[in-house]
């Protein structure tokens, strides 16, 4: 008995009886990130070097080394996480997707083009639509399987996660829910996102404990509507402003610098254009920050553990601003530190509450996926 069957968690968590994280006066969070970028730098730079000289093939092993480090510096209560995935798993996953998916797509692309050239545009278009639908379906499956793979390779106290479900049905859900979301003029997209999150995590487990997600989409709707209507609002505001300035210049009558004034208006429009996209992006961030807080906040593991995510829009904004600044200042090289920054961000703001009994936490008997995130890789959706 390790004396950690007591409560854990940060503010609002259960009373901390034998919580070692609290006992030594350390931070109250159940998740703590202890890495430093100085430790990470040698890994990142050698990964970059080896990836370049192998024309990209090393990147699977590079990802593995990166995760090994990041996981090993992430503490949950009293013990660090461990990444037990292997580079060759990711590599074979990639190869499998290249053979089973990449080559057929390449061939189909040629067939579609040939049909178009030979004068069967209808048939070509039908084939194209079928291809796009298949890719849509597979990208849903890919998201699911990547999560399953990552949980299956994440160990804590020797216990791993996983899922009994291979995710092929989830792919169908992904298709119809997003289809409904977009068909309702895009208004139901938050519902699709939230319900898919719940569905995905509902099939996952850690040890013998099941995850569950019970989030409701209505709390995120207000912010989504703001993002949804933002272009309209911004356009109206923009046109009003431009109109006002133009009227002002016109009414000012005869003055020598009229060309200059019109030039300034042009500059203003350009600035407005940039501001438009920035504000629209910000509106999305505002929505996304809330979305993650809601879906993670309604997650549970087993009966006794619940989760939380506390990153605000401001935190996200700072993260992204930092990313952009880092990449710009280092002329692009800083790009190799982004995975570090994102993981640190995630671990810093994720929280868990409740009670866990290590004697009762048993090894997962879910099947272990033999291959890595090939599909996700092919669709370029890797978050970290």
């Amino acid at each position, binding site marked *: *008995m*390790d004396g950690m069957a007591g409560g854990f968690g940060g503010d609002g968590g259960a009373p901390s009886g034998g919580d070692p994280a609290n006992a030594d006066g350390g931070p109250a969070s159940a998740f703590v990130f202890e890495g430093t970028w100085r430790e990470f730098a040698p890994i990142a730079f*050698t990964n970059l*070097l*080896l990836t370049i*000289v*192998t*024309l*990209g*093939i*090393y*990147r699977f*092993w590079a990802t593995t*080394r990166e995760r*090994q480090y990041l996981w*090993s510096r992430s503490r949950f209560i009293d*013990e660090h996480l*461990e990444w*037990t995935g292997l*580079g060759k798993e990711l590599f074979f996953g990639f190869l499998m997707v*290249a053979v089973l998916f*990449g080559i057929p797509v*390449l061939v189909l*692309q*040629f067939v579609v*083009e*040939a049909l*178009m*050239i*030979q*004068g*069967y*545009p209808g048939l070509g278009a039908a084939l194209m639509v079928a291809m796009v639908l298949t890719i849509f379906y597979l990208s849903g499956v890919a998201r699911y399987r990547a999560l399953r793979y990552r949980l299956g*390779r994440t*160990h*804590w*106290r*020797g*216990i*791993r996660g996983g899922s009994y479900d291979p995710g092929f049905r989830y792919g169908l859900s992904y298709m119809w829910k997003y289809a409904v979301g977009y068909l309702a003029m895009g208004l139901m997209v938050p519902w699709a996102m939230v319900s898919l999150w719940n569905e995905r995590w509902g099939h996952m487990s850690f*040890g013998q404990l099941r995850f569950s997600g019970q989030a409701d989409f209505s709390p995120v709707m207000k912010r989504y509507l703001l993002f949804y209507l933002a272009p309209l609002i911004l356009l109206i505001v923009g046109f009003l402003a431009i109109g006002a300035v133009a009227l002002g210049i016109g009414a000012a009558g005869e003055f020598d610098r009229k060309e200059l004034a019109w030039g300034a208006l042009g500059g203003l429009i350009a600035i407005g254009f940039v501001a438009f996209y920035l504000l629209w992006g910000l509106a999305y961030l505002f929505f996304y920050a809330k979305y993650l807080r809601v879906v993670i906040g309604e997650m549970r593991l087993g009966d006794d553990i619940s989760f939380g995510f506390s990153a605000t829009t401001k935190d996200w904004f700072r993260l992204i601003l930092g990313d952009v600044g880092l990449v710009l200042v280092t002329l692009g090289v800083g790009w190799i530190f982004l995975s570090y920054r994102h993981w640190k961000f995630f671990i810093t703001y994720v929280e868990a509450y409740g009670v*866990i009994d*290590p*004697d*009762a*936490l*048993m*090894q997962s008997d879910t099947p272990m996926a033999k291959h890595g995130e090939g599909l996700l*890789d*092919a669709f*370029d959706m890797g978050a970290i």
Partner: protein
Amino acid sequence: MAKVCWTRSIWVRSSFVAEMVEAEWYDGLTARKRTGHASLSGSVLLLREDDGTQTALPLQDLRFVERRPEGPVLSLNDNRGFRLRLLGTIPPDLAERLPGESRYGHWIDRLGLPKAAALFAGISAVALAAVLTLPNWLGPLIPQSWERRAGDAVIGDMGNTLCHSEFGDPALKQLAAAIDPERPVTRVDIANIDMVNAVALPGGRVVVFDGLVQEAESADELAGVIAHEIGHVRERHVMQALLRQFGLSILLGGINSDVGSGIFGIASTSYTRSAEREADEYARERLAAADISPLGAAAFFERLKKEHGDGPDWAAWVASHPVPSERQKQFERAAQKGADYRPALSEQDFGALKTMCDEDEDVEEFYF
């Protein structure tokens, strides 16, 4: 867990205490932490838990995970959940038997990073060079009949987008025959596409877009362009480009998953500069043999140069071909003073080409 067995017998030696090292581990079955001592015993590592239970781990099953400040972390090959941390100084006889540290991966660790990086860079450079140069050798080795069959299977007769007319067809045939009388595979057509471009497609098919025909001011200009494209066919550039594209997409698939850029992409944009020069040289040779003035081609390039930037139409040709001014000069230089040049086609025949797509009533508009 087949290889982790529980043993009852305790193997004691006189130096037992000195050889033990403090250890903590997870067995990969429950989340319970176990603490005790580890010691070497023949070819197994003995883990003795504080409550007296013993576990024997065959040394060859151990896998190195990482080195922590407090000591090495080990796992088992067939039980990824198993974690063993050795704490404190490890006796030398045990240290020697533990699996070696791995950092970058087996091969790289064995060679050392600098050597491995240099080796990989060398291999990559050779592979890249092979993919870029081998097609130049392999392309011409592929029988033209194969290429033609493959090209026909993919492109066929381009639907109904090729223009035909009573006087246009023989005029075009006459022009192609003048440039390349022996042409065994080349077929030249005008397609109802309103773009200033011409392409050599797989299967020895040269397609001049109607937009370019309309842009040409004389049959000599058209002859220059057609001769250049026939040059691509005759020098097997189409096959070379296909093979190179294929090789590159496999080799660089690791970096860029966006493989394949389509038939037109391959045929029109991926000739190398040296292939373009070869096609130009071929064109000048054939124009001279057919007594067609290269000044037509030169004039065409001059107009390209002047009007470059006027519209996206021009960009297509300019992007896939060398700088027009340089080529213009070369065609100008090829003109021989006092040579007895004849127009590539009579005014009447050239006019037939210009109106070919208008006259063809059931030709369809091509759309991408």
